[in-house]
């Protein structure tokens, strides 16, 4: 056996911690002189880390957080550690730092942790433009003063993960208005999401893979916890996810208004609409309508009438749409009396 195929196999085995000791030693020696394999290892490790999510995701016991706190010297009973407050705890190489942990395993090589390639470790420092006392950046305009009303961006959204009662709605406020903008890399999409968590806003600016994340955020805020809803919600979610993973897919989010928001997901000529926080309509008397803004001088194009049954989240499979609609610069939602799509929207509630 010659060439790099053999090392490719070793790299994969190493990333999975599955090599025999002799193979492991051979690869480590090789890694010191092979930048290509070192890069490959980093990539395979990232991939292997995805496998971790095959495990059922569990909530760690509270005691674990406490023992880690104690391990770093922030013992129970102390005030919670505040940024920059007090003296730093001792470096963790004292006898207390390991808490009650057993000694390092046999063969543990402190000088070369096996999850790191052995080259260049000591010279490398974490270089990060955000390094320093910087807190994670907020949007320049800051959160609105009423950010604690339970909407996205407030701490209470944590409980939303477990199903926010749909009767709890943020108080009305004037929305930012303006059409939703397309989340393109480098686009100034952050301002659009002024009440979204800063993380989400930044992700929106980060391009295609971020779109998946943003939809995840929407769901994270609003997903229903009712078991009966979960089956169909899962199917809808998976369909959207499939769509998002297609090349060239895009998502256009309408700015949040009065606690409601919506995202159009489109790949090729197939469109889905994901709404969050829209009140359920009366399917006998009225309807929501999705509109496409196809140009400044043109009237809005009616795309589809749809019902919202679940205020928390609703996925509307719009289906095939025309190229004009698929490539519209923004979208809007109106609430209409009657059950048909009128020539023009009468009551625009999102976007537009």
């Amino acid at each position, binding site marked *: 056996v010659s060439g790099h195929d053999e090392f490719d196999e070793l790299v994969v085995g190493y990333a999975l911690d*599955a090599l025999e000791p002799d193979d492991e030693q051979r690869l480590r020696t090789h890694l010191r002189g092979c930048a290509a394999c070192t890069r490959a290892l980093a990539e395979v490790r990232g*991939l*292997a880390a995805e496998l*971790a999510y095959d495990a059922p*995701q*569990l909530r760690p016991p509270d005691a674990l957080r406490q023992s880690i706190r104690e*391990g770093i010297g922030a013992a129970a009973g102390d005030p919670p550690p505040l940024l920059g407050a007090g003296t730093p705890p001792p470096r963790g190489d004292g006898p207390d730092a*390991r808490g009650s942990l057993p000694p390092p395993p046999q063969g543990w090589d402190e000088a070369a942790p096996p999850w790191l390639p052995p080259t260049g470790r000591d010279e490398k420092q974490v270089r990060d*433009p955000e390094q320093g006392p910087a807190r994670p950046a907020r949007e320049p305009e800051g959160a609105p003063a009423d950010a604690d009303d339970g909407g996205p961006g407030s701490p209470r959204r944590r409980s939303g993960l477990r199903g926010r009662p749909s009767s709890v709605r943020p108080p009305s406020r004037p929305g930012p208005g303006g059409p939703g903008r397309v989340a393109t890399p480098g686009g100034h999409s952050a301002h659009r999401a002024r009440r979204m968590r800063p993380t989400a806003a930044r992700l929106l600016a980060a391009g295609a*893979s971020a779109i998946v994340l943003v939809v995840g955020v929407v769901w994270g805020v609003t997903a229903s916890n009712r078991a009966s809803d979960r089956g169909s919600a899962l199917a809808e979610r998976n369909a959207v996810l499939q769509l998002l993973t297609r090349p060239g897919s895009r998502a256009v989010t309408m700015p949040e208004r009065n606690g409601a928001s919506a995202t159009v997901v489109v790949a090729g000529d197939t469109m889905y609409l994901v709404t969050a926080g829209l009140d359920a309509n009366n399917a006998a008397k009225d309807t929501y309508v999705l509109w496409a803004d196809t140009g400044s001088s043109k009237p809005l194009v009616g795309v589809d009438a749809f019902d919202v049954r679940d205020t928390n989240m609703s996925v509307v499979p719009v289906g095939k749409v025309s190229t004009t609609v698929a490539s519209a610069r923004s979208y809007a939602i109106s609430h209409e009396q009657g059950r048909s799509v009128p020539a023009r929207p009468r009551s625009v509630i999102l976007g537009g």
Partner: protein
Amino acid sequence: MQDVRTPTVEQAPSSRGRSTAAEDRALVARVVARDPAALEALYDRYGGPTYSLARRILGDTTLAQDVVQEVFLAVWRDAERFDAERGGFSSYVLSMTHHKAVDAVRREENLRRRRAPAEMLDVRESDDRSVDDEVWLSLRRDRLRSALGQLPEAQRETLLLAYFGGYTQREIAGLTSTPLGTVKTRMLAGMRKLKDVLGEPLGADPLPPGSGP
């Protein structure tokens, strides 16, 4: 026990799956500067996935907690060892967890012997409280499962026996009555296929450092 809710930690409530690499790097830099709140914020993000991984490998809550504690104390001690140029913190911390958990399962050989290999491939929910309804995590899990589903059975089995079973290539050859060379080839082919199917890793930060808004 309550979460520490400093304003800084609050920025990333329970956002394990959604963490961006840039935020992770900033948190690691603060850990290097001995900021305990930053370590706690990293724990908020990765405590769940690391614990879940260790629990799956070890099949034991106490040992899993030991591993995760060891991992986060190692991050605290040696945060400067994290090199963002070699991949995200997520990959780093899960690799470390995997390594320590596999070490532990090999130390506790009798523990593993009591578990049939088939159990490593099992998908039972455990008795711990599940956070699967935190939709992001289940989304991520669905995606991975769907990708694994597209692998040939033999490749999937090989990867899962190694990753969750903690078996070496030679042990897998014995368990599956397959030549060692074939096991190595399957492992490589399986990871290549997984890469193709998964495409861009979720949570990757496509922005080069310093190009933020």
